[in-house]
């Protein structure tokens, strides 16, 4: 009641204006995050739109106006996880212990893909086109991709990650550990697919 069609100066209009003033400055980081998580500009735009609509609905519950960025990240990350749940058969990919034990460092030493290199590990990495590295990140399950993208791309601390992901710091720690292991293995598999590694059986 008492609102004008243009969105001000009634209470609803003021509320909306305040929301836009506080939340829209984070459009760039939010889009960047969405793009890195989806790898697709149209999907990223959808995700950002939906994030802002959700955010507007729950803006009244935001207590600390200084915490707008993590709050928006949190809404976006929940949307990603929910969508993922709705579309994917999120079967646990494998035994996490196997993943924990995977070591790209050891794998490179053991299979020695560049037999004449003095700098085996660096040269192994140097073989990857940028696009394939991004592809490896996009191939990870969201549960690992999200914390890694937030860490690498937005420099969030473990505490901030826990807040955004809505889980304890210990869980953040283990997801970042397994996420990196999964990424290492993805890089290895990618090298294998590209024929960078000759697999031989004695």
């Amino acid at each position, binding site marked *: 009641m008492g609102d004008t069609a243009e969105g001000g100066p009634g209470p609803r209009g003021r509320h909306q204006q305040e*929301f836009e003033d506080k939340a*829209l400055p984070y*459009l760039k980081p939010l889009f960047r995050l969405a793009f890195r998580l989806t790898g697709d500009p149209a999907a990223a735009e959808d995700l950002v739109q939906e994030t802002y*609509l959700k955010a*507007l609905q729950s803006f009244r519950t935001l207590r600390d106006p200084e915490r707008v960025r993590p709050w928006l990240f949190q809404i976006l990350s929940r949307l990603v996880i929910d969508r993922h749940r709705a579309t994917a058969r999120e079967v646990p990919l494998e035994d996490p212990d196997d993943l924990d034990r995977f070591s*790209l460092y050891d794998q490179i030493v053991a299979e020695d893909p560049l037999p004449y290199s003095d700098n085996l590990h660096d040269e192994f990495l140097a073989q990857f086109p940028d696009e394939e590295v991004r592809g490896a990140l996009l191939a990870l399950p969201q549960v690992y991709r999200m914390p890694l993208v937030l860490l*690498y791309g937005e420099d969030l601390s473990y505490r901030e990650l826990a807040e955004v992901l809505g889980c304890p710091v210990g869980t953040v720690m283990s997801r970042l*550990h397994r996420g990196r292991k999964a990424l290492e293995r993805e890089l290895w598999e990618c090298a294998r697919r590209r024929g960078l590694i000759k697999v031989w059986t004695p």
Partner: protein
Amino acid sequence: MTQRMTCEQAMRQFFAYLDRALEGEPLHAFETHLEDCLDCCDRLQFSRRVDAFVKERLVDAPLPEGLEDRLRGGLRRVRDAGKA
């Protein structure tokens, strides 16, 4: 008297160390292990490289043209619908 850390225990802490999330006694134990273990130093160095390698390759996508306007439009439509 603190127990010495094994390589396996140290490796579980690699990423927390790289992310500067270790402190106090666990950090001390980890660094003590590194002082005596060249193998873990090499591995840690490699993990640091992989981190930097991936981080450098994240793209900074430019905002699609008109996104902010579309967004404001969408938000206003929601408000107006809510009012109806």
